[in-house]
């Protein structure tokens, strides 16, 4: 077992037993569920909407080269720069070099999962740049020196009391936990940095091919300040964020907001097409788009799982996942957690260490039902399990166990006999009081369950008795 897998099991055990953490998650997700229930009726036909979204993303992803080139041409025509980064290191180097060349000292950053994926903040801080995460949730976890807990709500594992204590300790807040006051503290503290920073880094929600624009969505407006005030704007994105037309956003903006937070649309949906244009009042002098591959082109080549690249990062699959709700986002130890993380992480470069994630699911299918672009998430977990087993990566003992099991099951006679023998052994063991002891044959089960009642006769024995052989 890889060390990442061992770490996962260890953390999962801790979090599964942490009732307070489960209750916090339950409460926060109840808020989300209530918001969805209120907001879903905005759609006359949500199923039609997600089918249409699936078709649009299918068109975009299955013609990815064409649309990326169209996007690039239009961005460059307006004076923007497009850099294609094969690896996380390429992306980091481009951005740190850009900052160094331009005498940047302070960087304001708004939410970017791709930024997390390439560990951008750490790379910049190492080179001596001061980086502020301005999304409130990211700001909070940055103060705690923690990674984000959830794609959309980075601090959802914290209560207001914990946040108040954090602000009191780090920012001189007064310890009051009224969310309104806490937000005001963050606003006050970050505002100075917005006005003095030389560079703003944002993520991207959609790359719009026909207009050469990047679409950025926030509720707070931190991305707006970060793309209006600093001299340089860098937008970092995966190559898969493409949609063909501006008009497509008329559907994607409401779908993203509805599934992400239960809103009609998010408060600010910005479109940036370049640096400040001639005649414009303000805006950055330079605009850079960093397109990250980092294994996405490999996933593209897997025609069966290609639609994982349709993801619009709404976070709904995390919210509905009973495993996520039990272990929380940090346990995954991965940039992307929950169901989308479990199907995506094994495919990114250096993804082998996440090969345990596709197995850490009960395959309930709630994620697939929730996905606004109809990714077949839980079936892809099955596909990935098949791929991992097929690559010969599972332990020898497990492979032998399934071979043995198959041998038994290919014959009703063998099954009947071995079933009878197994039950006899269990009845003996439990009759001797060995349930729950180290000698319990069902120990992996009885660690957390009472043993089932072991019947004397199987169904087929009883049936034969009652009805004769068939």
């Amino acid at each position, binding site marked *: 077992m890889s060390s990442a897998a061992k770490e996962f099991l260890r953390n999962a055990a801790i979090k599964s037993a942490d009732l307070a953490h489960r209750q916090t998650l339950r409460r926060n997700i109840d808020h989300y569920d209530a918001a969805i229930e209120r907001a879903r009726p905005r759609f006359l036909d949500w199923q039609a*909407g997600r089918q249409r979204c699936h078709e649009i993303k299918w068109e975009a992803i299955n013609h990815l080269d064409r649309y990326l080139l169209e996007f690039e041409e239009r961005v460059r025509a307006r004076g923007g720069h497009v850099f294609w980064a*094969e690896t996380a290191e390429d992306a980091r180097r481009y951005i740190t070099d850009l900052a160094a060349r331009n005498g940047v000292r302070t960087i304001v950053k708004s939410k970017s999962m791709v930024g997390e994926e390439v560990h951008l903040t750490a790379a910049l801080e190492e080179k001596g740049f001061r980086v502020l995460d301005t999304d409130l*949730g990211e700001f909070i976890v940055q103060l705690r020196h923690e990674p984000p807990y959830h794609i959309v709500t980075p601090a959802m594992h914290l*209560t207001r009391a914990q946040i108040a204590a954090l602000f009191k300790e780090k920012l001189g807040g007064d310890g009051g936990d009224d969310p*309104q006051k806490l*937000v005001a503290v963050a606003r006050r503290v970050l505002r100075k940095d917005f006005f003095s920073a030389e560079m703003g880094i944002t993520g991207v929600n959609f790359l719009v091919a026909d207009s050469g624009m990047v679409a950025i969505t926030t509720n707070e407006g931190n991305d*707006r300040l970060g793309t209006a005030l600093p001299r340089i704007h860098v937008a970092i994105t995966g190559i898969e964020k493409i949609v063909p037309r501006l008009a497509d*956003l008329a559907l994607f903006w*409401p779908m993203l907001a509805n599934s992400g937070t239960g809103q009609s649309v998010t408060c600010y949906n910005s479109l940036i097409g370049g640096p400040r244009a001639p005649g414009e009042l303000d*805006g950055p002098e330079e605009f850079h788009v960093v397109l990250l591959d980092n294994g996405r082109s490999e996933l593209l080549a897997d025609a069966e799982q290609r639609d994982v690249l349709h993801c619009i990062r709404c976070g709904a699959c995390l919210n509905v996942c009973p495993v996520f709700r039990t272990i929380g986002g940090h346990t995954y130890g991965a940039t992307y957690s929950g169901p989308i993380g479990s199907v995506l992480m094994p495919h990114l470069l250096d993804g082998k260490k996440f090969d345990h994630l596709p197995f850490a699911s009960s395959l309930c299918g709630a994620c697939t039902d929730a996905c606004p672009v109809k990714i077949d998430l839980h079936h892809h977990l099955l596909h990935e399990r098949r791929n991992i087993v097929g690559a010969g990566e599972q332990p020898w003992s497990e492979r032998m166990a399934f071979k043995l099991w198959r041998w038994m099951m290919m014959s009703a006679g063998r099954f009947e006999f071995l079933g009878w023998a197994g039950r006899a052994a269990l009845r003996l063991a439990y009759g001797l009081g060995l349930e729950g002891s180290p000698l319990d044959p069902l120990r992996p089960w009885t660690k957390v369950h009472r043993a089932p009642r072991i019947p004397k006769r199987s169904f087929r024995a009883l049936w034969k008795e009652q009805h004769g052989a068939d």
Partner: protein
Amino acid sequence: MEQTENPGRERILARIRAALRKPAPMHVASGSQRTVFAPVTDVLARFEKECAGNHTELIIAPDADAAGAAVASVLASLPAGEIFVQDAPALRRMASAWPQDAKFHWSNAALAGGEGPAETSQATITLAETLVAQTGSVFVSAACGGRGASVVAPVHIVVASVDQLVPDLDAAFARLNERGVPAKNSFLCLITGSSRTSDIEKIMVLGAHGPRRLVVVLAHRWE
């Protein structure tokens, strides 16, 4: 940036092209032609309802004069400080109705070498490209006083006329495209209500980094 400084570009494109030689199935399901959103019939009523829901303060005025007076009363309620205004003829005409002792900073004056709204601005006043009834939103562009005008100050006042109001986002994009707005602006933004966050216990709080108050003054008639 020269192409030669980005060798990864050709390699990524080559991998994409190779990958796409294998076709991937689309989920075939009926329904994508069905109507996703119920058509908006009473456009103004819908806009009013959505604004109430997303905490946009909507003031409907019969004409430009009344609109000017409405803006004046909002300004009168603010603490003293700079008011940044998009330098547009319609707003210049209205300005005579506004408190004369207020510190107005007209956007074109900034072009001469200054920036957008100051950090300590109390409010900004701009026009809009279009308004959207479906979501109770305002679509602004760089031409509406710049990028900072709609986000820097704690209060953002939008002055618009009813014939700028369209039923839904489809119509909004159609209108923007018809008028070449995306091509002429490096920045567009669909604004829906006041700045907010749900990052604390997923409970919504208003007034994060953007304006705490969004006021839309909507005139029926526009001279």
